[in-house]
């Protein structure tokens, strides 16, 4: 009888004590530990500098604050994790999110820390104009604008020259002529993809085309508007007659980016965060890459796509030490010199202003991105920033259907609309 009881007690202790001890060991150090699950790890071009800055912050705040990076290299998995944590009211101390209509739902309730008061002071002056406003809803700024994206057309000039093309096409009609020349030279004109969670490359082609036809305010129109149907027709042509690779239907970002890196495709779309990858993995392609806007498909030529890519956020807390730690870290990560360090190393662009001097080795390709934005006739946004994630996910599925000849451009749009409804 006694043995039974002892064994049962041991069983209960074995199940409960480890958790208790873990909690106590954290409390004994006296240091406020902030957990930061982040995607900026591993292969991400910002990983190195971000890790260095975190280590430097920890050294400067030793005994007071400590930021622990939790590596989450899978972007989609990370998003799901954050969704679940916010829903479970177990919001991470620090995290990153894509500011799209779905993620802005995090602002509802009181689960995120509001930085509006702090940003109203000097700290707010480090950000580019409009960035804080874009991160503010009903007077609450529950995230810090951080990385921004610009996604112009990338083209490999060496492949163009090889095909006898001397100038980047001005109009979409010229674009098809260039595509024919490229194909004749055995080069696939464009990188495309219907896979991944948002068919990223093709979604950006579609967005560029739609804006070129309908202008920067095109997204105010319903998705079944003739402007989008015309854009879908052009996108369908990009999937036809060998204008893209055979694996584009079903292909993901690795496929579309991989073909451009391997010099198999001449044109591609992505943001400046990809510069580090091209520079490291395909130096020849990097040397020959030029940046442009979409050849005019309508009445609004020369536009570019620019958008907020990642915001920093933190779980709301009543713990003053934790709040102090979060604020210190946010200010540290948005210090112009620190942002500059990440930008210089990775090629990524940020919503924080910083100065570059003659001694700074600004990446030439990154400079082309900046020039592209400065030279743009207008800057608009893309499809995935306008619609919730389930609508964005449907884009790739509907596109595959159209590309495989199972849906017309009008049906493609109707399929997307069915999810919007």
């Amino acid at each position, binding site marked *: 009888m006694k043995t039974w009881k002892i*064994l*049962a007690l041991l069983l209960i202790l074995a*199940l409960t004590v480890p958790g208790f001890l873990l909690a106590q060991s954290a409390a004994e150090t006296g240091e406020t530990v902030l957990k930061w699950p982040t995607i900026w790890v591993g292969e991400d071009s910002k990983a190195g500098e971000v890790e260095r800055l975190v280590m430097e912050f920890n050294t400067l705040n030793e005994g007071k604050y400590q930021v622990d990076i939790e590596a989450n290299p899978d972007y989609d998995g990370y998003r799901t994790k954050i969704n679940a944590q916010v829903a479970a009211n177990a919001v991470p101390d620090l995290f990153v999110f894509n500011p799209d209509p779905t993620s802005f739902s995090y602002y509802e309730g009181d689960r995120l820390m509001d930085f509006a008061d702090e940003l109203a002071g000097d700290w707010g002056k480090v950000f580019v104009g409009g960035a804080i406003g874009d991160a503010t809803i009903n007077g609450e700024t529950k995230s810090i604008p951080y990385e921004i994206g610009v996604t112009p057309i990338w083209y490999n000039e060496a492949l163009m020259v090889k095909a006898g093309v001397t100038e980047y096409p001005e109009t979409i009609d010229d674009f098809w002529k260039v595509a024919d020349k490229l194909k004749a030279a055995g080069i696939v004109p464009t990188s495309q993809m219907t*896979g991944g969670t948002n068919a990223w490359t093709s979604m950006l082609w579609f967005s560029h085309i739609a804006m070129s036809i309908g202008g920067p305010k095109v997204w105010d129109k319903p998705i079944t508007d003739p402007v989008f149907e015309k854009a879908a027709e052009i996108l369908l042509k990009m999937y036809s007659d060998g204008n893209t690779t055979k694996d584009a*239907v079903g292909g993901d970002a690795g496929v579309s980016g991989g073909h451009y890196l391997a010099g198999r495709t001449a044109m591609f779309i992505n943001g400046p965060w990809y510069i580090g990858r091209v520079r490291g993995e395909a130096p020849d392609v990097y040397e020959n890459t030029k940046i442009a806007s979409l050849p005019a498909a309508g009445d609004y030529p020369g536009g570019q796509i620019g958008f907020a890519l990642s915001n920093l956020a933190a779980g709301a807390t009543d713990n003053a030490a934790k709040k102090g730690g979060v604020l210190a870290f946010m200010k540290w990560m948005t210090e112009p010199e620190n942002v500059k360090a990440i930008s210089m190393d990775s090629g990524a662009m940020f919503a924080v202003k910083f100065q570059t001097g003659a001694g700074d080795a600004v990446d030439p390709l990154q400079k082309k991105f900046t020039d592209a934005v400065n030279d743009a006739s207008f800057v608009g946004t893309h499809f995935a920033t306008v619609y919730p994630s389930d609508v964005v996910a449907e884009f790739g599925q509907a596109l595959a259907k159209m590309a*495989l000849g199972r*849906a017309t451009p009008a049906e493609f749009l109707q399929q997307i609309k069915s999810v919007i409804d």
Partner: protein
Amino acid sequence: MHSVEKVLAARGLVAKTGPRFSGDRPMVKRNKNWKQIILFLLPVLTLFLLYFVYPLIFVFVTSFTEWNGISAMQFKGLGNYKRLFLSDTFRLSFRNNILWALVLGLVQIPLAAGMAMVLARKPRGWKTFRTIYFLPNVISQVALAMMWLAVYNAEYGMLNGLLNSVGLEQLTHNWLGEYETAFPAVIFQQLFYIGYFMIVILASRMGIPESFYEAAEIDGANVLQQEAHITIPMLRGILVTTMTLAMAFGMRHFESTYLMTNGGPAHQTSVMGIVLYRNLEALRFGEANAIGTILIVTGGVVIALLRWFFGRKASASETVQ
């Protein structure tokens, strides 16, 4: 009863009407030390209630609501279920899960059983083959999916390369990107991972006394007759169990499809797990939980049907005997 079984039974090597199905209950002596039993069960029971039963009830209740996980829930009645069954994508995903369950249960298990029967006869190199077949079970699903992505790729994939090299260019496809080939291609790669079930069946097969086979051989039974009339009847319980498991895996299949096609092209390979995942991403927890409930119920129904079917067959065969 077949002649071989009759001979074995006559020699006392097989019980004529002994328990043959794992569902048969042996007599259990009632333990009166209920206080100790409760004390021992309490920790695990608490965890089970907290981390399994409570979430299950929560999933069921919230499946009738519209809820983004942050704002207050709004009761929606059967709205989520109605929306799901009106959705072409969900209906296609449901059908695909049924197909997954059928293929895994009716093709993968026979393959695993066949291989276990071959290996149990200990041909030359059987241990090596046993290891080879089990190897995929210790490799991550992600790595395997990446490997198959490379095999199926339309531009540089091994499969198209092979077809091109033997002059069968007309048979090359964008295997994961075409309506006709995507779903079969995803299922096909999974069929070969028989290792887990093969090991389970093999372990049971090894437990059958060799004397049964020796006796059958003396009586003139060939290998196929021995397998059909000794092995299969004696493995009936484990075959039903593995088939049940395989079909349950099929009903909740998600990983390799998500990794290889994300449900595409045009939802052709989608399964319920992918639709659920999309709803989670879109912060539509009510609808996601409705799918979760459907998954649990259909999984339970499939298992119950399977047990009922094989239980009925077992009773019928015992009645005949």
